């Protein structure tokens, strides 16, 4: 390894934060390079100073101050999870209630998809009155087919018109 690379590794070498392979390479290089050795010593001095400063210059928490801080945190927590909230608004219950409401809503919205096409009221009436058109009626939605029945008062003649969605007469089979 050249000096440039070794100097790049020095900040980590100081704290033994290099892999053992790189550490060994740096160690060997430092043994033979006076300039890099000087660099290493400069790093070692500054990091030693900073570390000493960190380890010796500390602040301590007095008993009273510590207890007050913990009590404040406990009071804050009690506030954020108040026991006065009615049961539906407590977190766990709120999620359960919301979940149940959503399941019911989804069921009602998607209900028609699970029901048979014969359950549509218009279709049922049509097929009951005109069983001969049942197949056709079942295969079409109520919006596609309209039936109209005209009964003569005098003769009792009954005419049934089956109209498609364009109000054109459907062909009778």
């Amino acid at each position, binding site marked *: 390894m050249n000096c440039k690379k070794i100097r*790049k590794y020095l*900040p*980590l070498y*100081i*704290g033994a*934060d290099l892999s053992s392979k790189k550490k060994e390479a740096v160690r060997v290089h430092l043994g033979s390079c006076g300039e890099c050795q000087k660099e290493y*010593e*400069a*790093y*070692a*001095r*500054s*990091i*030693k*100073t*900073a*570390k*000493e*400063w*960190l*380890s*010796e*210059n*500390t*602040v*301590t*928490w007095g008993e009273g*101050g*510590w*207890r007050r*801080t*913990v009590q*404040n*945190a*406990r009071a*804050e*927590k009690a506030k*954020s999870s108040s026991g006065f909230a009615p049961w539906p608004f407590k977190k766990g219950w709120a999620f359960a209630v919301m979940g149940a409401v959503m399941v019911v809503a989804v069921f009602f919205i998607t209900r028609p998809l699970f029901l048979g096409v014969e359950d549509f009221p218009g279709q049922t009436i049509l097929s009951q009155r005109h069983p001969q058109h049942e197949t056709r009626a079942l295969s079409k939605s109520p919006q596609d087919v309209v039936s109209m029945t005209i009964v003569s008062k005098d003769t009792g003649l009954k005419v049934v018109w089956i109209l498609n969605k364009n109000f054109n007469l459907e062909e009778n089979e």
Partner: protein
Amino acid sequence: MKNEEELIEAVLQGDEDAFELLLYPYRNNMLNLSYRMVGNLEDAKEVCQEAILKIFKYMSGYKKGKSFKNWMYKIVVNASNDFLRKKRRHEDIFMMKKVMADNLSTSPETQFLNKEVREKIADCLEDLSPKERAVFLLRDGEGLSVKEASEVLSASSMSIRTHLSRARQKLRGRLEKIFPDGPLENDL
């Protein structure tokens, strides 16, 4: 006296008194980490209160078997970053350096570092980005390994090494400017 695992179990069962006992040994670690992140003792206490509240609230999210201390550090670092983001005062958070230097405890071993030197070293942290500062404080201040720091900061080991290297380079550069003849030339 319950051990940490028993206290965690008790907290998970809803024992609020156990919560205080669980955090008590780490109270100064929390305070120091947040203090060095935000640079002001009052703000650090505010950050710690927020962190304690989060630990309390999300205790159920703690995975048993993992280091509770590291999990707690993660919450403190995140709370500190949130605080810095909210306040948007990265430029002047280190205004309390003088107060900080006066409040710091001194031991016979540190007497060679006078108040002026301490202030200047505190200045150096200002040059680091929040990420670099967090990595440096966790690795060189709290003594976490690169792997542990990567877990705390939710970053890859590669990213932690990159930030750590940059932080150490910046600190060295800054310290050399402050002390051209070397701060502790004869101390090595």
